[in-house]
């Protein structure tokens, strides 16, 4: 906890000293920068972690500021004012959550469209604030109200701002220690993998956006009380851009970065604006330099300098905790394709595929390139929506459902090119996988959940030949292809799914590693009589592991039988005689 309490108490101490050392007026100025800093911290949270960049944060800032101003104008008792503020914050957070969740539903990237939607919303708000003169006071703004609790904006109100600012920083530091933080970062790192692990990423992004909106709104409310006036500029494009700059220059990856950015830039521009005619040019240069040379902003530079003087505490190995039981469906069931067709544009990928697997065993899918093997897996997990037909697993229709629902139905998948969280360590990857299908919302806010290790993973790790145990603290980026295959395999079985989909699990492995992988697969299948579907090119592996073999050709089932029958099937021979393996 020292890593949380030390910076927060330093911050609190520094902020409390300001009025003593520099007087009330400087404190008043710093107060404004802290308010912007709070909004920027929210922006830094969503942008730095999930990679989603909202361009219209002033929307929440401004709307909250107007609502705060109207509430203060009514001059209600303090308790009532605070209660209304709480309601407003909840409403704004709820709106932001709904907005982002709806927009991101069914998508797995954070393209510029969301950024532009938020920008357009802020522009609409600014226009309405300027036009609806009778409600908002128009361009001249809404003014004529006392600050919260009739505190002196040049005096005691500063401590309210400091309290909020320190509180928000503390909250953000704590969030960094919680599993939610891992999930938020995982969205940026590898969203498709996170969806396959059963996490509805649109909800994660919605929650992150709601949190950032909440902080922007909190800042807006503080702003109204601090300034005594709210104008349309508080809700438009310019303030949104300003917040973005503060966040980028300060450093979006660090809790205190945006706060630092707000105070440093705010202070510099107030000092230089009137004495240095080219300060805007200077700012532009600083800005370009930060983007090119220090994407982590001032905070990153500071951290590097600090790291030189203070050797970082060696990463202490924490004992792992046993994960909660998996809630994914584990009962063996038959997978059945009913006349499945799949078209992408004008290209027909699957042409009426029908088959039914046994409830347990290893089924290999083989076929020449372009036969539709990976597409079959994509239709099972929901990555591709069917053109017609349906797929059932047990009693349930599973086709054309969102990807994140597959895991809860007991379906887990390893991708063709190993797909792991490349910017995380091996152990963090395993933690995220251990949460899959097990974690509840409440668990996400417990420190101990970070140490979860699923028993299925432990089983893989404890196998004497599996190389991962001594690599736990390595960044995944340093791992070889073979090691990544084992890591992704371990992550895929973590939730103990009833149906395991493996797309070329042995690609890039040495003969020894191949033997190990096939052994692991066999073992997994046999322990609970589960179903495993493997795409494989190497016939010796197919022969070694398969109970049944599905041969695809041109998007159709050519044969579905045991290995020896397939080998002697003249049609299959005809296809493979062409020279492809």
């Amino acid at each position, binding site marked *: 906890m020292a890593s949380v309490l030390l910076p927060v108490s330093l911050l609190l101490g520094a902020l409390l000293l300001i009025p003593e050392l520099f007087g009330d*007026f400087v404190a*008043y*100025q710093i107060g*404004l920068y802290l308010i912007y800093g709070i909004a920027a911290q929210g922006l830094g949270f969503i942008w730095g972690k999930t990679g989603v960049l909202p361009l219209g944060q002033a929307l929440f800032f401004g709307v909250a500021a107007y609502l705060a101003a109207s509430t203060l104008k009514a001059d209600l008792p303090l308790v009532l004012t605070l209660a209304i503020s709480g309601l407003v914050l909840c409403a704004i957070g709820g709106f932001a959550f709904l907005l982002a969740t709806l927009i991101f539903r069914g998508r797995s990237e954070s393209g510029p469209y969301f950024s532009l939607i938020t920008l357009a919303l802020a*522009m609409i708000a600014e*226009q309405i604030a*300027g*036009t609806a*003169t009778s409600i908002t006071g*128009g*361009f*001249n*703004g809404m*003014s*004529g109200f006392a600050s919260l609790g009739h505190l002196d904006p040049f005096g005691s109100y500063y401590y309210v701002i400091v309290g909020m600012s320190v509180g928000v920083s503390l909250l953000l530091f704590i969030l960094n220690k919680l599993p939610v933080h891992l999930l938020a970062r995982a969205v940026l790192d590898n969203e498709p993998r996170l969806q396959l692990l059963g996490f509805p990423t649109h909800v994660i992004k919605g929650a992150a956006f709601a949190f950032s909106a909440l902080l922007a709104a909190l800042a807006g409310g503080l*702003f109204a009380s601090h*300034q*005594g*006036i709210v*104008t349309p*500029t*508080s809700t438009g494009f*310019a*303030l949104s851009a300003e917040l973005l700059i503060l966040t980028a220059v300060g450093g979006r990856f660090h809790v205190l970065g945006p706060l630092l950015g707000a105070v440093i830039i705010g202070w510099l521009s*107030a000092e230089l*604006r*009137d004495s240095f*005619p080219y300060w*805007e040019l200077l700012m532009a240069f600083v800005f370009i330099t930060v983007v090119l040379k220090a994407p982590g902003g001032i905070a990153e530079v500071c951290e590097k300098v600090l790291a030189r003087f203070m050797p970082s505490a060696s990463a202490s190995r924490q004992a792992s905790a046993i994960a909660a039981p998996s809630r994914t469906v584990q009962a063996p069931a038959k997978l059945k394709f009913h006349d499945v067709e799949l078209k992408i544009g004008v290209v027909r990928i699957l042409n009426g595929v029908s088959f039914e697997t046994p409830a347990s065993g290893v089924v290999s899918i083989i076929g020449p390139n372009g036969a539709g093997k990976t597409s079959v897996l994509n239709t099972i997990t929901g990555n591709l929506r069917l053109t017609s037909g349906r797929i059932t697993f047990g009693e349930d229709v599973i086709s054309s459902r969102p990807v994140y629902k597959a895991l809860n139905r007991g379906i887990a998948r390893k991708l063709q090119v190993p797909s792991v969280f490349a910017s995380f360590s091996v152990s963090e990857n395993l933690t995220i996988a251990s949460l899959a299908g097990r974690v509840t919302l409440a668990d996400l806010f417990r420190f101990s959940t970070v140490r979860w290790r699923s028993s299925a993973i432990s089983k893989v790790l404890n196998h004497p030949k599996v190389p991962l145990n001594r690599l736990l603290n390595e960044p995944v980026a340093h791992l070889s292809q073979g090691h990544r295959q084992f890591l992704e395999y371990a992550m895929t079985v973590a939730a103990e799914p009833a149906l395991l989909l493996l797309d070329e699990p042995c690609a890039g492995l040495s003969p020894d590693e191949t033997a190990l992988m096939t052994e692991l697969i066999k073992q997994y299948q046999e322990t609970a009589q589960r179903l495993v579907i493997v795409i494989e090119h190497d016939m010796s592996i197919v022969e070694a592991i398969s109970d049944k073999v599905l041969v695809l050709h041109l998007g159709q089932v050519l044969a579905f039988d045991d290995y020896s029958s397939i080998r002697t099937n003249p049609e299959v021979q005809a296809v493979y005689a062409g020279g492809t393996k």
Partner: protein
Amino acid sequence: MFKKSVSLLPSAALVAILGSVPSFADIKIGVLVPDSGPAGLFGPSTRNSATLAAQDINAAGGINGEQIELVFADVGVPPAEAAQAALRLWKGQGVQAFVGMHDSAVREALIGRFNGQVPYVYTPVYEGNSCAKGLYITGETPSQQLAPVIPFLAEKEGADKWYLIGHDYNWPRDTNALAKGYISDAGGEVVGEEYLPFTVSEFDSSLQRIKESGANAVLITIVGGASVGFNVSYAGFGLDEQAIRLGTLIEENTLAGIGPDNADRLYSSSGYFATIETEAAATFESSYTDAFGSDAPPLNGLGQSAYEGLMLLSALANKAGSLDVEAMDAVAEGTNWSTPRGDNTLTGRHMAQTIYLADGSGGAFNVVTSFDNVASSEICTE
């Protein structure tokens, strides 16, 4: 080339001259100018005019015998930042009075922060209806710019079908509300009224409406660069033959941007033009040119208003014998003073002044007529 640095040099030189007598500079006056943002265009001429005013005030013995020193702050930023800049001067540098040339949102923010504790003169054209304690206004309000002018144009140009077009905010709406009364008093009618968002830079549909309305006069309260764009398109469509234009915020820079081809029968109503042919105005212009060079940013009503503001402040403070708000308030009503604009009187904390009507045809303002001692309908009683 490098106009910005060229324009900065002479004023820097002048500041150096003024700064060479710091032992006499006992009173600091804060001058709030827009150096950045959309009104940044008016920053240099405002600074220069204020500098000239300080020179003249000090030459005449200063305020209550003490020399004044100007401290500038950029307020071409959002209200929160502008208020901070002003507070820095007040709380940080000991400024005792303010003169401000900036937009209304900043004014409202400043009123809230000053709280009547420091004299504050607001100088640009504005919509009226601001009567905070300690606030004095030299800027023209809509009633001054329109009440004498609309009947005059009805007479001279036969303007009786008016189309009112402005940006969608307080100043144009308040201006037009008054204009309607003056138009009907002059026997005219309003054939259209329209407000545009600040973000719109295409005016085709509005121009089409003006054309179809059969208007023979258009009252323009579009501000800033959009006013240039509007007037260029207006003439491009040949509407200048159909209807005269009257603007209450079209000054020298805007006219230069509109260009000589597009300014036929474009009237502007203001308390100041660089081309006013009175002795006081001519003297002012020549000392401006002497101080800042012939290449200096052109004089205009907004920039020059800072001179007016400082002169009012000096007149009031000298009359009251102090820069205390209460003392100034007690003697404010009826204060007389003369400036390049003419003879002025303070009534209801607004400035009754000469209003000039100029025709921009050919790309330069030619003063058509003037109306002496026009008082504002805005009266602050307390």
